[in-house]
């Protein structure tokens, strides 16, 4: 045990590990706040759809020999606008709309990679992330994007909350709900692009779902959800990264499994609490009758 702790301590002194923790925390806070609106608006698959659109964009970037992440950024922005337009359309259900864009990005990317015989892309790093290879420039970019995104969410917070609660009622009170639908989708796209280096394309959507999903199991109000979601996001990436260092496992996958374990714990705690309160109610009811 002491040997494991000693080696963990020495790993934590390393610059690349510290950078991994810093960027993970930035992404965790950003994605967990946004996840509240995504989960409550019932568009949880949007992160997945946009991540696969990003995959197509990265492949296109390599094919065009132009900065892949920039090309992915453009395709994700276009994808987020397209997904939102399709979701808002009454002709197609929202999950089907996301699925179409997901397949388009994935298939397009695979075709481009196969045509160019691989480009020398590390598919593993794209799919599962490589948080331990993050440099300071990425941290600065992520910090700036997080500040801008959280600033926008803060500016429109009460309108976003209303639209999330009930779109029809929000529209009926004069709120331009279409603008906020596009805004959430666009900000999700930005988070996807920033987060791909950490958890990769396959697992990014989990960071845009799990923190809010877990916090809504525990929270008794929206205010509590807003406080709990970033805390759960932070806990997920911190514990996940530590476990991945201890077990020498893939950080992206370990982070996501940690998030799912926290969600399962929240479900179990809720069930135990409900069973206990039902038993107490029954006991009080019987005692009341006997008295």
């Amino acid at each position, binding site marked *: 045990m002491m040997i494991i702790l000693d080696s963990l301590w020495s790993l934590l002194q390393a610059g690349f590990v510290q950078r991994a923790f810093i960027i993970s925390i930035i992404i965790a806070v950003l994605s967990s706040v946004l996840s509240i609106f995504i989960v409550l608006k019932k568009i949880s698959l949007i992160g997945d759809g946009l991540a696969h659109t990003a995959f197509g964009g990265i492949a296109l970037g390599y094919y065009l020999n132009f900065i892949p992440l920039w090309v992915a950024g453009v395709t994700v922005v276009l994808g987020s606008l397209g997904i939102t337009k399709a979701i808002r359309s009454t002709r197609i259900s929202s999950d089907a709309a996301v699925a179409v864009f997901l397949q388009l990005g994935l298939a397009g990317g695979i075709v481009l990679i196969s045509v160019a015989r691989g480009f020398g892309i590390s598919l593993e790093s794209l799919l599962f992330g490589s948080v331990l290879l993050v440099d300071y420039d990425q941290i600065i970019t992520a910090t700036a994007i997080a500040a801008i995104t959280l600033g926008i969410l803060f500016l429109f917070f009460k309108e976003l909350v209303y639209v999330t*609660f*009930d779109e*029809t009622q929000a529209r*009926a009170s004069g709120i331009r709900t279409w603008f906020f639908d596009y805004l959430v989708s666009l900000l999700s796209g930005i988070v996807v692009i920033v987060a791909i280096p950490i958890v990769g394309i396959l697992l990014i959507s989990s960071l845009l779902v799990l923190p809010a999903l877990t916090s809504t199991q525990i*929270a*008794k*109000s*929206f205010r509590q959800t807003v406080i709990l979601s970033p805390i759960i996001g932070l806990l997920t990436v911190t514990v996940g990264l530590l476990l991945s260092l201890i077990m020498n496992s893939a950080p992206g996958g370990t982070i996501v499994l940690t998030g799912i374990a926290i969600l399962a714990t929240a479900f179990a705690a809720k069930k135990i609490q409900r069973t206990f309160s039902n038993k107490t109610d029954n006991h009080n009811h019987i005692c009341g009758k006997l008295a």
Partner: protein
Amino acid sequence: MVARPIVELRDISVRYANGVLALDGITLDVNDKDLIALIGPNGAGKSTLLKVILGLIKPTTGSVCLLGSEDLAKNLKYVGYVPQSAQARDANVPFSVFETVMLGRTPQAGLFHGVGLKDRRKVEEMLKLFGIFDLKDRKIGQLSGGQSQRVFLAKAMVADPKLLLLDEPTSGVDTTSKTEFYNTLDRLNKETEITVILSSHDIGVITKIANRVLCINRSQFFCGEETDFNAAEEINKMYNYPVEIFEHDDHP
């Protein structure tokens, strides 16, 4: 000078994209302090008509004027609305009763402005008025139909609206809660002088508290004073089925 009606509907027709004619030639003036009972069978177009007034559905023909303006969005902050599905909430939706009612203050606060102490006081006032102050910390999805209905009425009223639109607000609610609800509505209409349009299937009770009645089944069957309304005759025409009406003291 005669005041302009709160709502002016002129020859409203709505045809959906699938070709279904939902409304055909509805004309109505809603005056200040009116309480209008909107009656019709399922699929008659009652919800569509309320959505036309709110600008949620654009009429295929005809014009809508809300509080003196055809630019409906401009005056929506003076309108309170309780949709038909308002009470149906997932138990996990993490909104407390207080937060739900507070949402009604969003249009009043304006863009880039948060809700403040004045808004919180207004919410507390409404929670007390509707007898739900003790429920303020409960999750909205954990309330009974009757409690939930009072929360959404409080949310609609918290913005001090001039016009209140209620779309079948008592569906799925027990008889006692219905009676309490209609008594509250009658009191609100008289005390706050708010204008109300109420769609419902509780014909007996809503025609008692309403001063005017509008009967529709896609087209307009009756529009006039409650005193001129012959329920049996109009229901016969609307439903195209013979009915007899019996009064019972225990049922509204």
